[in-house]
């Protein structure tokens, strides 16, 4: 295969278009550094400049409008090697729609060279203004051109952490400029202010009347981003596998709702009792329900324990409701029926006929211990889960000491009730 990056001498652009000049300069720059074409990956954006793929002998990816930088970032991170060069070809339209991707690649300092073909206009769609167009760069101007300045992409990527930033005019020595950028070990952006004879500024010399100032910034001290592969362990290995060691008095299936406030240990309490139930050979399903906030509003745990496999869990009419706060009560009150055993915090105002136990849960176990206390009370009083199974799961928990205190308190409560 030819060592030359350019595969053809014929270009698809309009006569006099700056893109032809840049394509030739790119080939010169790559070859001057000594890259073999197969060590180069050009990722091109949508727009006239994106027609470059067919001109090149290297790997090419032609993606979506504005997303070429992000796609190129994925390629660089995926390769985990520095002996390939990723070069992005995009226009001012692509930079406008994909600004976030430029900022992100600069922030990571991903090793790539971005050639921003800034002809100050959307050429392919007929000469509309881009976010980089100054006033009067196209005949299709809008009412706000004077009030809204063009974006300074060079300034933005510099702030984001790019290793190299360069702004040049199409009639500058762009071969050398591109060669310098491609040699950079990190994120390099070269913005080339160019003409679009068909829809934008026609003559190169008119470009120099614009306010774009040439820029050259090199920050060699920041290492280029390299992704890392690491060893990981099975997610299932990190869970405790439980064997049946205890017996439960439960026959059939029981559906329990634990209703409290977010941040008060409702979900953890249900998990602990679920784990203890596994030690008794029971099948378990546990679903959580809470608003999107983590520590405000209600927190409901739906716990099903069964001697047979549970194929469906959605508790509409619970056998047991354990209610520890007003938030929880407001949420589940519609689920409670005549058949439901309610065990609840005594300070809550709630009137119903039916089976109900009121306990000083919050006073004795505190807000954060009340859900676990209510579950323990129910499990032990009705011999759903034997004490030994509960003690075993508490022993393995990182808050074992606190949980033991709650267990002790519940034990005392049950003794008092026995008298």
């Amino acid at each position, binding site marked *: 295969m030819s060592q030359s990056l350019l595969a053809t001498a014929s270009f698809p652009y309009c006569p006099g278009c700056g893109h032809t000049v840049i394509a030739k300069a790119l080939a010169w720059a790559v070859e001057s550094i000594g890259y073999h074409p197969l060590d180069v990956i050009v990722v091109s954006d949508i727009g006239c400049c994106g027609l470059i793929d067919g001109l090149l002998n290297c790997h090419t990816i032609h993606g979506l409008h504005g997303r070429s930088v992000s796609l190129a970032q994925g390629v660089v991170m995926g390769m985990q090697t520095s002996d390939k060069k990723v070069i992005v070809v995009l226009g001012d339209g692509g930079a406008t729609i994909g600004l976030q991707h430029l900022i992100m690649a600069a922030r990571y300092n991903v090793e790539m060279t971005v050639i921003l073909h800034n002809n100050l206009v959307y050429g392919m769609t007929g000469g509309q203004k881009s976010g980089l167009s100054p006033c009067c760069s196209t005949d299709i101007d809008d009412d706000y051109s004077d009030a809204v300045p063009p974006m300074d992409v060079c300034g933005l990527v510099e702030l984001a952490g790019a290793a190299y930033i360069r702004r040049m005019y199409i009639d500058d020595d762009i071969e050398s400029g591109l060669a310098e950028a491609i040699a950079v070990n990190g994120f390099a952006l070269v913005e080339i202010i160019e003409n679009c004879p068909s829809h934008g500024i026609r003559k190169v010399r008119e470009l120099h009347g614009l306010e774009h100032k040439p820029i050259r910034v090199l920050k060699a001290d920041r290492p280029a981003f390299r992704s890392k592969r690491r060893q990981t362990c099975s997610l299932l290995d990190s869970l405790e596998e439980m064997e*049946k060691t205890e017996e439960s008095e439960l026959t059939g299936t029981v559906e329990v709702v634990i209703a409290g406030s977010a941040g008060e240990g409702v979900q953890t309490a249900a998990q602990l009792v679920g784990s203890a139930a596994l030690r008794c050979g029971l099948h378990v399903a546990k679903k959580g329900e809470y608003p999107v906030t983590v520590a405000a509003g209600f927190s409901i745990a739906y716990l099903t324990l069964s001697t047979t496999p549970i194929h469906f869990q959605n508790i509409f009419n619970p056998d047991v409701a354990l209610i520890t706060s007003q938030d929880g009560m407001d949420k589940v009150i519609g689920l409670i029926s005549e058949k439901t055993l309610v065990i609840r915090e005594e300070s809550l105002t709630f009137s119903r006929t039916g089976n109900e136990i009121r306990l000083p849960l919050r006073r004795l176990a505190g807000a954060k211990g009340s859900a676990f206390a209510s579950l323990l009370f129910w499990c032990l009083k009705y011999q759903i889960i034997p004490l030994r199974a509960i003690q075993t799961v508490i022993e393995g928990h990182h808050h074992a000491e606190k949980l033991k205190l709650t267990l002790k308190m519940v034990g005392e409560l049950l003794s008092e009730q026995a008298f």
Partner: protein
Amino acid sequence: MMRNQQVLLTDGSRVLIESLAMAGGDVFIGYPITPANLLYGYGQQRFPEFFPAPDEISALQWCCGYSAVGKLPVTATSFPGFALMLESLNMAFMMELSMIIILVQRLGPSTGSATVGSQGDLLLLQGAISGGYPLPVFCPADFQDCWELGRLAVEAAIRLRTPVVLLTSKEMMMTERSLSRSTLPIFETTEHSPQIHASLNSYPFTPDLTPPFAPVGNPHYPVRLNASTHDSSGLIRNSTPEAMKNTERLRDKIVMRMNEYACFDHDVDERSRTLLVTFGISHGAVRKAVEDLRDRKIYVDRLTMKTMLPIPWSVLEMMDRYSHVFVIEENITGTLKQIIFGSRKLPHVHSIGRIGRMIAPDEICAKVVSCLNPC
């Protein structure tokens, strides 16, 4: 009752991520969104590489970059994030890049309710690829499926060179259940090994319609990937006959080869002329309803769809055997029903659906009984 078995209490997210990592997933790239947030956390723990993307468009573009160099990326999202991914998903499909997208359905429309489950995104997937091209979708119905379909999805993504969607719901990914580890068989990783093709074209025609994969950056020949219409060279072309042939191949490849991955669970009672069809999270309720109906001597069959888009021909033909078909899904627009039967109102086809909470087995039984015995 289980006796002397080692049992775990786990959610479906953990099982699915473990399966995908075991099957050959190289990297998890994601943007956090409820109810896919457990998947994000497990992805960070389990995959050899992990990247927090700044948005869902970047997430899928990074996935495409990883896939282009020969790695298998996985991402997870919910409708709002998936909507942002759509154009990039089309790009991945057009470039024939392997990847896994887990779509955890939540109540819509729009942002809807992040913590309420749903099954509302099936029609979105059917129309996701411009032109109506088939996008392989795998729908786990329980934790064993999370394990098995995770593996199959990776295999299909690599072998068919396509993005694959694992379509699930909040209840499957976040509800914890007891699970015996012995029900999750050990399996082999699917190798994503490069195949250098003698034609030196990026998309050569082969008998299985799937071009051999060579990574971008390989030292043998230039690879051309293209989101725009292209022929076998991978270079941009207008609607030339060669380019159209390549584009038609994208449809034919999936239609022909998804049969290799067709998965469904057909529970048959010889006396039945009634079929209950479902998928994903509604499977549990339908299974229970079928048991209850049979207990009442109302004989019904159950079909749980696990792979879709396209729906296997054998499944469509099977529908003709029944006098009544009930399609049960957690939405009120009947998306699965539309995919199977179209928009026409057919007297023997009935929808059972609801929003805001899961469908209950009792509701299914009541509707079936009232339709079969109208008086």
